[in-house]
């Protein structure tokens, strides 16, 4: 008797708090028909924003994978002084709010920051352009791959790798034939989460983007710009693109968790 009530209450909460907002995006975006929606997402500025977002994700992804694998290998396979501190530093971006993160980058890499000021005579500017967007995106996404790959590496142990070593395998051979097959799925899982976050990051990017129309606006920023321009349909149309990406991310996550139940359990 209590069971139906609790289920209904949970469903109602999820519906009102989670489903309705997403439904509202699509309703508003298509309120004036699919034609208007299509012309809204293909408007030049929005197209530029989509491209910049993809470009950022494409730059951030390989760096994240290389860093994540290196960090996971070093931390799982070796003991060295400062190992625990290193792990905490890698996890810290998850504990820092986006605006504070963006501000930290501005204070160091901006024109008035020590690094930014040192590079200025050479004509190098790091903030308010693509470099700045990539740097903060790396900050907000760097824990994802490590936190998925490291536990698996640690649990797998290194017996197989040691065996390969005694058989005369080189470091690269050990990695590609022995280690990599064990961590393919966690790596993919972490990479998907990191990419989704890089695509959707708003706060940190908005601090360092410079907000130049058609040039340094990623898609999440473009949504705000269109919305403040009272171009509501344009804003909601752009939002549908990101909402669809979010749904795809969830489905991919679900699939990986379903086919590799051990993975779903750790996160």
């Amino acid at each position, binding site marked *: 008797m209590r069971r139906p009530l609790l*289920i209904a209450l949970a469903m109602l909460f999820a519906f009102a*708090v989670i489903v309705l907002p997403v439904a509202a995006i699509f309703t508003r975006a298509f309120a004036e028909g699919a034609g208007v929606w299509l012309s809204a997402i293909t408007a030049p500025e929005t197209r530029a924003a989509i491209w910049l977002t993809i470009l950022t994700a494409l730059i951030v992804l390989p760096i994240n994978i290389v860093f994540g694998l290196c960090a996971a290998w070093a931390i799982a396979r070796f003991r060295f002084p400062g190992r625990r501190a290193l792990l905490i530093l890698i996890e810290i971006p998850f504990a820092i709010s986006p605006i504070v993160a963006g501000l*930290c980058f501005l204070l160091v890499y901006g024109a008035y920051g020590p690094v930014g000021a040192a590079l200025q005579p050479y004509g190098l500017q790091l903030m308010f352009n693509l470099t700045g967007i990539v740097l903060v995106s790396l900050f907000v996404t760097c824990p994802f791959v490590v936190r998925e790959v490291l536990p698996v590496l640690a649990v797998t142990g290194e017996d197989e790798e040691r065996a390969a070593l005694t058989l005369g395998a080189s470091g690269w051979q050990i990695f590609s034939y022995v280690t990599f097959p064990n961590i393919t799925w966690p790596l993919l899982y972490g990479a998907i989460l990191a990419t989704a976050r890089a695509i959707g990051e708003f706060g940190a990017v908005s601090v360092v983007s410079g907000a130049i129309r058609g040039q340094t606006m990623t898609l*999440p920023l473009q949504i705000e710009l269109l919305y403040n321009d009272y171009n509501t349909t344009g804003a909601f149309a752009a939002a549908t693109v990101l909402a669809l990406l979010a749904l795809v991310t969830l489905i991919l996550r679900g699939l990986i968790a379903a086919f590799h139940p051990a993975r779903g359990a750790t996160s």
Partner: protein
Amino acid sequence: MPILQTPLDAVRRRRRSPLPGLGLTLGVTVTFVTLIVLLPLAGLGWQLAQLGISDYLFVMSDERTLAALRVTITAALLATLVNGVFGLLLAWVLVRYRFPGRAALDALVDLPFALPTSVAGIALVALYAQDGWIGSLLAPLGLQVAYSWWGIVVAMVFTSVPFAVRAIQPLIEELDPAEEAAATTLGASRWQTFRAIILPQLMPGILTGTGLSFVRSLGEFGAVIFIAGNIPYETEIASLLIMIRLDEFDYPAAAAIAGTMLALSLVLLVAINIAQTRLYRRFERGS
């Protein structure tokens, strides 16, 4: 998803590994962490150190700063309370009951994590504005959510509800239903069973979930600024005030507020970790 908690225990203790790659991988890792995490954090610390105590207090005692902190913290507290209650409910229903739509409900819980915050922001405004689906229902009752403090709470609830659910869920899975059955046969009411048997065992999860939810709410920016109205002294959150000070090139003021928020978050996270370890230890001793 505990933050600042590391899976070190799974690694065997040993002297020196014969495996190759320490130099290369550690070199890449340290370089990356230095450039991307350490230097920016040091930058904030450096700016704060230059500021000095009296300047810091001057910024922080400003009426507008205090109002922004008050708005942010009170809204985050209410959002966390809501998430604690409904997070527990959702986690309970997801673990204990089998019903049509359970898998969909489980997947839905992660949606706020996956949805970019600016998308969440305009979605919530669309919903709670006067002409929105929910806003139009509330308007005749004289309730206004969008462009008010309540809107901030709604945005914070949306963005942080998964933390609560996902932190409590695994602990409910570990509960032994036999204990509840025993309590019932001994004559305990449902409420007594919940209070004396279930709740204490879920405390570590509730603590972590609400703690992470609170920290996330304190720092939330994208979802909030669309629905808040952003009126100084009334509905202006701390993150937005940092942004405004930056636009005015008042870096010291921005750094002072940011440093305070950051310190608050880190202290909370460390406190959660310590409390959690203690709670687990008490359990292990008790059983």
